[in-house]
């Protein structure tokens, strides 16, 4: 029952340490097979009723898998066809060691009772444990352990059949000699009934070439050669980044080198895929070249043909080299680690037979060859495909089809693609999560009332964008004392429903945020909470967490208090309705008075905030009007802002700041805060440059100076100029991030954009998980709740913050991708002339911003790589001159907008210049009848009946 494991390990400082560890051997580990009568019954998912059907075996049989089968063929195992599988602990450990993602997938299958998997802890079982021999390699030892368990099972249950699946020929040979039935997974699956799904998913790792084919790629060096090469400095290890425009070019970012290493051509890239960790050999200096400036698209259609690729390589060689731009050049000689993942894309048309080419939507990924028996169907679909291998003789990597997402071009399919590509968890909420929801009808009990401050009588109301169903916040304001006010911000008490450690809590923490696509919302918490029980709807009694200030008439805070409360919002306004209520002098009801009071105080707060150096940034936010029936975008426009937008924002900022101070005071080590780092000064270079060309001096020394220079940067002849500068300034900023207070120095807490020393998120717990944590912390400070271990664990909080930051970033990108897709959809087949502004001047193009649609597009003045014979580029002045017309940055222009849909995966806008009119380049304006007047849309009446869908205003701070 007892043995020791001894091994010798080298310590960091080079001493040899002898490590001895205990290893207990047990007699209470059971086989898990239901028909066994010797072992005690044990919880096991193996089933005697489910039967694996394979024509090689007459009866039901249990499968034992070798590690390589799991690592290579996870997609096959994911299919609920192979069942009754015994996973040995030795194998499980090795899988975990080799690939964490695959381990997690395997673990979720093991946990699923309907899959009938069982983990046998062979390495602690008295009959299946064997000692590692002195000179035995770890792989051989593991293989021996696996075979030992197989023969034990056979002896333990002579009535059952056990089959070992292994792709390792040596292991199979020894197993057969020991009398263990064994097969490769391929041979096994080919004999399984209804195997077409499985055959499609079989990873193509070991394709044997029967006929001799020419090797297309040079071989990779062996691992030993690579490691010694890197060690002695002859070779360099780095991350490969493929070019998006040229499939025969890429860079390798090497940590120790300042410049990335340029690699070109088939032999230069040598089967490296974007993201792989590779080893490069750098050529002699005289062979260095400059990056090409041509666009090369992979137009290969067949597996065999390499003529086309050779042609393009020659084209690449011919393209001119600029002496000054020469970069270190080299070639990939080996791959340390593949970073292959699953890719979205479509099948390339025009191929017959089972071999098909898959075109990933990510242009930095090569086409992938897959084998499928349902090509006709798959051609209509968006697919997910993964890479298995890339042999030397194959022009394209080999992969296999994982699943279809839906019809190409469908809203739902495209949403799915956006969500997948941005790693947004979007599956249905599990039963376990839904079980955490309160039972309906939900009623407020006596006990609830006792624990909360009852402010149902107060005149509270909410102000949100139209169509908002997840109302996080509500406000009130009433006069107190002589000339003071009591102002309350009431936030949905989501933490009341989501208790720490429950399934719903874990799910929300993993989702981190609600994701808003144009016509779809992916909730962080189930709809019952987000749109009903937590949502502070007008006229409903709801739980809230209140932050209440006493203020004087100058909006100075005299006193702050926090408490959990019961509220009954009197009305939920849209920004527009609230604005109208404030402006309508005839209205003098308590709600109108309350709104007016809030508005007055908000203006003072805003003024003070801006004086302190808070930045006003701009990025065009777009609203897309959708047809509720067909879900097609009707119109795209930039969001309209009211005074009430900023009124709500001011009080949310103030509440967040007050809460941040409070929780940091109580929890100096583990308060969840939000910081916005000061950008490095080089970030501002584009902004300063743009200002200089306009004769404006932009001071970026500190936030306050920047805010001031931005305020002063106006020119009466171009009212949009200031906004453009603010858009540029926004792009210089870094991302704001969450962090645990104990992990950073006090000075680093600073929020640059808001110019406040402390900030957090408290006001949107329905759609942000960070706010839930902040609510829990705040609840502790006011005695409304107790702590739990993870809340006070600095390490755990930091890990949580990392996930929140990652998910938030991805949610933002996903939202933008969705807007882009719908804008494209809107413009399909349309031709429109629009007002725009020049954002940047380039050598052969103008970067144009079209504020109406929030679009930024490129207007090419010449074909890529050529120079224009009409325009004259002045690098010094950053201008383009044609005849007597000169274009500078920020100049207004009129452009014709259309969509180029030739490449269905990469639609793009094409611009043509309308005004200023330049002979031989500009186009005539569209006819009067076709012109769309932005102020008076022809379909106004029609539009009002359509529902509007919104990209919810994600507050920038």
């Amino acid at each position: 029952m007892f043995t020791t494991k001894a091994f010798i390990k080298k310590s960091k400082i080079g001493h040899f340490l002898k490590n001895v560890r205990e290893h207990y051997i047990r007699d209470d580990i059971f086989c898990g097979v239901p028909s066994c009568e010797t072992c005690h019954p044990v919880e096991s998912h193996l089933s005697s009723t489910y039967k694996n059907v394979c024509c090689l075996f007459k009866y039901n049989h249990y499968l034992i898998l070798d590690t390589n089968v799991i690592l290579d063929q996870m997609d096959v195992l994911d299919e609920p066809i192979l069942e009754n599988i015994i996973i040995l602990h030795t194998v499980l450990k090795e899988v975990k060691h080799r690939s964490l993602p695959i381990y997690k997938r395997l673990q979720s299958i093991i946990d699923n009772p309907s899959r009938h998997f069982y983990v046998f802890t062979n390495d602690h079982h008295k009959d299946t444990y064997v000692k590692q021999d002195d000179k035995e390699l770890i792989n051989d030892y593991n293989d021996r352990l696996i075979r030992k368990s197989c023969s034990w099972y056979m002896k333990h249950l002579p009535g059952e059949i056990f089959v070992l699946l292994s792709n390792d020929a040596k292991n199979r040979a020894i197993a057969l000699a020991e009398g263990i039935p064994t097969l490769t997974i391929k041979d096994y699956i080919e004999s399984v009934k209804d195997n077409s799904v499985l055959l499609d998913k079989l990873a193509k790792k070991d394709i044997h070439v029967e006929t001799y084919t020419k090797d297309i790629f040079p071989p990779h060096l062996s691992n030993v050669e690579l490691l010694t090469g890197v060690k002695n400095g002859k070779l360099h290890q780095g991350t490969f980044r493929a070019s998006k425009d040229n499939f025969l070019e890429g860079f390798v970012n090497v940590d120790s080198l300042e410049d990335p290493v340029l690699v070109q051509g088939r032999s230069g890239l040598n089967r490296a895929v974007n993201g792989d960790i590779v080893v490069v050999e750098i050529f002699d200096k005289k062979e260095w070249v400059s990056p090409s400036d041509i666009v090369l698209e992979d137009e290969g259609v067949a597996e065999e043909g390499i003529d086309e690729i050779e042609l393009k390589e020659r084209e690449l060689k011919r393209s001119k080299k600029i002496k000054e731009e020469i970069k270190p050049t080299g070639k990939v000689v080996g791959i340390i680690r593949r970073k292959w993942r699953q890719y979205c894309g479509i099948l390339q048309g025009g191929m017959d037979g089972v071999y098909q080419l898959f075109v990933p939507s990510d242009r930095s990924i090569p086409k992938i060859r897959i084998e499928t028996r349902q090509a006709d169907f798959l051609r209509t679909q968006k697919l997910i495909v993964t890479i298995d291998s890339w042999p030397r003789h194959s022009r394209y990597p080999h992969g296999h089809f994982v699943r279809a997402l839906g019809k190409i071009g469908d809203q739902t399919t495209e949403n799915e693609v956006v969500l997948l590509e941005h790693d947004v968890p979007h599956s249905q909420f599990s039963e376990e999560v839904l079980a955490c929801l309160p039972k309906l009808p939900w009623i407020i009990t006596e006990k609830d009332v006792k624990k909360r401050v009852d402010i149902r009588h107060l005149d509270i109301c909410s102000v949100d964008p139209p169509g908002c169903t997840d109302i996080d916040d509500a406000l009130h304001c009433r006069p107190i004392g002589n000339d003071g006010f009591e102002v309350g911000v009431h936030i949905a008490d989501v933490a009341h429903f989501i208790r720490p450690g429950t399934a719903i809590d874990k799910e929300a923490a993993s989702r981190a945020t609600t994701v808003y696509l144009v016509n779809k919302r992916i909730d962080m918490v189930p709809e019952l909470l987000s749109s009903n029980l937590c949502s502070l709807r007008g006229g409903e009694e709801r739980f809230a967490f209140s932050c209440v200030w006493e203020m004087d008439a100058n909006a100075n805070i005299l006193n702050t208090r926090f408490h959990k409360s019961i509220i009954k919002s009197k009305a939920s306004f849209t920004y527009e309705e609230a604005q109208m209520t404030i402006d309508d002098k005839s209205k003098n009801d308590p709600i109108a008075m309350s709104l007016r009071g809030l508005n007055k105080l908000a203006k003072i707060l805003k003024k003070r905030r801006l004086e302190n150096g808070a930045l006003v940034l701009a990025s065009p936010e777009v609203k897309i009007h959708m047809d509720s029936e067909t879900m097609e975008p009707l119109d795209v426009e930039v969001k309209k802002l009211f005074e009430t937008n900023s009124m709500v924002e001011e009080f949310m900022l103030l509440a967040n700041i007050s809460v941040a101070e409070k929780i940091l005071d109580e929890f100096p080590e583990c308060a969840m805060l939000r910081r916005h780092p000061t950008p490095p000064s080089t970030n501002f270079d584009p902004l300063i440059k743009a200002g200089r060309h306009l004769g404006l001096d932009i001071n970026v020394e500190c936030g306050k100076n920047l805010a001031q220079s931005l305020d002063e940067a106006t020119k009466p002849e171009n009212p949009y100029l200031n906004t453009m500068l603010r858009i540029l300034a926004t792009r210089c900023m870094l991302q704001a991030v969450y962090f645990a207070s104990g992990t950073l120095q006090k000075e680093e807490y600073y929020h640059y954009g808001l110019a406040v020393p402390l900030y957090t998120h408290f006001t949107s717990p329905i759609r942000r998980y960070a706010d839930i944590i902040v609510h829990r912390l705040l609840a502790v400070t006011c005695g409304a709740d107790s702590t739990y271990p993870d809340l006070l664990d600095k390490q755990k909080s930091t890990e949580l913050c990392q996930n929140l930051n990652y998910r938030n970033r991805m949610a933002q990108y996903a939202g933008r991708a969705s807007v882009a897709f719908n804008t494209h959809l809107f413009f399909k087949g349309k031709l429109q002339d629009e007002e725009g502004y020049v954002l940047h001047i380039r050598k052969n193009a103008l970067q144009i911003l079209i504020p109406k649609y929030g679009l930024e597009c490129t207007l090419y003045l010449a074909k890529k790589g050529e120079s224009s014979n009409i325009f004259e580029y002045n690098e010094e002045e950053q201008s383009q001159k044609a005849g007597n017309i000169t274009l500078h940055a920020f100049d207004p222009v009129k452009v014709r907008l259309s969509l180029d849909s030739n490449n269905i995966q990469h639609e793009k806008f094409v611009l043509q210049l309308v005004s200023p009119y330049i002979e031989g380049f500009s186009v005539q304006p569209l006819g009067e009848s076709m012109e769309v007047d932005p102020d008076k849309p022809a379909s106004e009446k029609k539009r009002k009946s359509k529902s509007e869908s919104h990209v919810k205003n994600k507050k920038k701070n």
Partner: protein
Amino acid sequence: MSKNKELISKIGLRLDGRRANELRRIRCKLGVFTEPDGSAYIEQGLTKVLAAVYGPHEVRGGRSKAQHNSAIINCQFSMAVFSTTERKKRPRGDRKSTELSMHLQQALEAAIKSELYPFCQIDVYVEVLHADGGIYPACVNAATLALIDAGIPLKEYVCACTASLANNDIPMLDISHQEEVLGGPTLTVAALPMSGKIVLMEMSQRFHLDHLDKVLEKALQGCKDIKEILDNAVRLHVTDIGSSTGWANTKH
């Protein structure tokens, strides 16, 4: 090393194959030396400790230290040069060993009927031969056995044990060095298991109050289990000695 490492697998086994509530293997022997008045050797897993007891004898170094109502318990803790994976000279009286000596003294004082020996002194020497987690408990347990071997009257056994939290949730017993390094906070408890009195409690790191009860309960259970094992060893030892003189055979 990641703090998230699973210390208990889904199947319920720890890294070395134990279950959460299982002690490591304990082997012990009383009377390993002839020179001291009492001595014992204990192995808890790979942690190995020798203990020797001298006394009670007259207080050395002047009578001024002597107490008129009880004996002085003097404890000396040391670690062998070869006791850890890295060989290191450990001077006597460094901070760690002074602290451990004091804690040991505190635990033993609670068990020894020192009031029987006024103006006397009892010396307890413990030496760690190999350290693999849970040094202090092994020292307490070894010292208890050595005191019994020396025939010093005890109120009851004093036993010690460690406990910790695996996967931030499951309390587990008798923490090995590997688990100490990978895991979270370790709770060390020395107790009089029969009466259930805790004589010493120490935590290596802060942890949340919610967890304390279940971890403490686990550690106390460990002390009781250890007491059973020690008790058996003592009985076996007494039978052995007895059988050589012949009197014990009548009983068994």
